[in-house]
């Protein structure tokens, strides 16, 4: 992890102050949050969406949401970096799904990412450290290829077990086993 990214996550106190100021209506604080986090939000959006304009839209959506929900977020104990990442992924995958789906082809049971993530995913639960990010990234890089690919399809494309099986031709049971094994391994590197 480069120094800048580490600083972004470790500057958690500064972030909390900025969010408080944003909630009070400070556009200056929002600009500072943008400087600190937009590169990660944009990087993640680019990884999910191939079109530049789509990734730019995601950045705008995320900071609009931060502006709107700073007051609600302020009371939680999550890291701002984690919150932004969650918002970026949700927005980007929603956009990816709506772009990929032709109205007649869209699977009716395929849920919007925001529907999958939001109801039970409150920001107070997601608090990460720079160590978490580094450890998980390294562990992901050392996973067997056939596990990493499936985890990445789920994370970066928002696919479910069945969609991954349909996309890759890997039998459903094998998809489940590989994702489970990979997630257990990734969880194993977290420090208490």
């Amino acid at each position, binding site marked *: 992890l480069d120094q800048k990214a580490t600083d972004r996550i470790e500057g958690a106190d500064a972030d909390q102050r900025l969010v408080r100021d944003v909630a009070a209506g400070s556009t200056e604080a929002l600009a500072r949050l943008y400087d600190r986090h937009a590169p990660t939000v944009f990087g993640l959006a680019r990884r999910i969406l191939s079109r530049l304009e789509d990734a730019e839209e995601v950045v705008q959506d995320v900071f609009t949401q931060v502006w709107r929900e700073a007051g609600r977020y302020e009371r939680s104990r999550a890291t701002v970096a984690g919150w932004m990442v969650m918002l970026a992924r949700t927005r980007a995958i929603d956009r990816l799904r709506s772009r990929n789906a032709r109205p007649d082809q869209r699977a009716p049971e395929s849920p919007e990412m925001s529907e999958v993530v939001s109801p039970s995913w409150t920001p107070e639960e997601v608090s990460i450290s720079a160590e978490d990010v580094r450890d998980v990234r390294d562990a992901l890089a050392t996973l067997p290829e056939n596990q990493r690919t499936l985890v990445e399809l789920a994370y970066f494309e928002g696919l479910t077990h069945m969609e991954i099986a349909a996309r890759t031709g890997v039998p459903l049971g094998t998809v489940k086993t590989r994702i*489970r094994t990979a997630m257990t391994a990734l969880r194993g590197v977290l420090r208490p």
Partner: protein
Amino acid sequence: MTTDHEFDDVVGAYALGALDADERAAFEAHLRGCVRCQQDLAQYRRVVTAIGAGVEPTAIPESLKARTLTRVTQRGAPGSAVVGAPREAREVRSAWSWLQVAAVLLVGILGAYVVSLRSTLNALHEELAAITSQANSLRQELATLRTQQMQMASTLEVLGATDLVRVELRGTSPAVVATGRAYVSREEGLVFTATGLPSLAEGRVYQLWVIPPGAAAPISAGLLVPDASGAANAILPLPAGVTSVGTVAVTNEPGPSGSPGPTTSPFLAGTAGG
């Protein structure tokens, strides 16, 4: 350890958003009552968030900052609603006053039409919200039924085991009216049912213990969550390494996850064949 261990397998996939609708609904129904899965989920969410935060930051087009801040601040103060597009001022420079009158009338008619459209739209919104909430409660009901069905199936597996042993439990002084019964199979696990359990103080939980024949120390089999009437039912695997059960007991322990060994005298206890 609490309940259905099959859910251990899906927590990671759930955090990742990879569960299909059916599995997701069943897991969410289970999650509400399972401390173990909630704790696991918190860990997996750290993993999932870290995956995203670990993506290389990317250089951003210069102009995006100004565009983003402009768009955001056009929305007004935090928490406020979207401000609509400014209305075009319109000047009528006509000398024909009847035309002005007609225009005013037309605006009035259009205004009334807009008001009626808006009220229709509001009614539709409300209807949609009602239908959505109805659909959600049906979905939850279905998920609950699925969970119950899975519990029934597990119960039947235990009760149908060829090595089934029954243990009757009797209540002791804090809970004299309580009774319990455990069915134990080495292969299939343990089905436990009890009634008459008094409600506990805030922050306390019921914990189930098994003592293999000849062993000294009770081993935790999991937590019990009685309903409002004091009845508790649970289907649990036997603790690792336990092959048979002599004594079964229930104690009152500190929540949310109980104790490694019992710290109070049992509310309920019984011994196989006793």
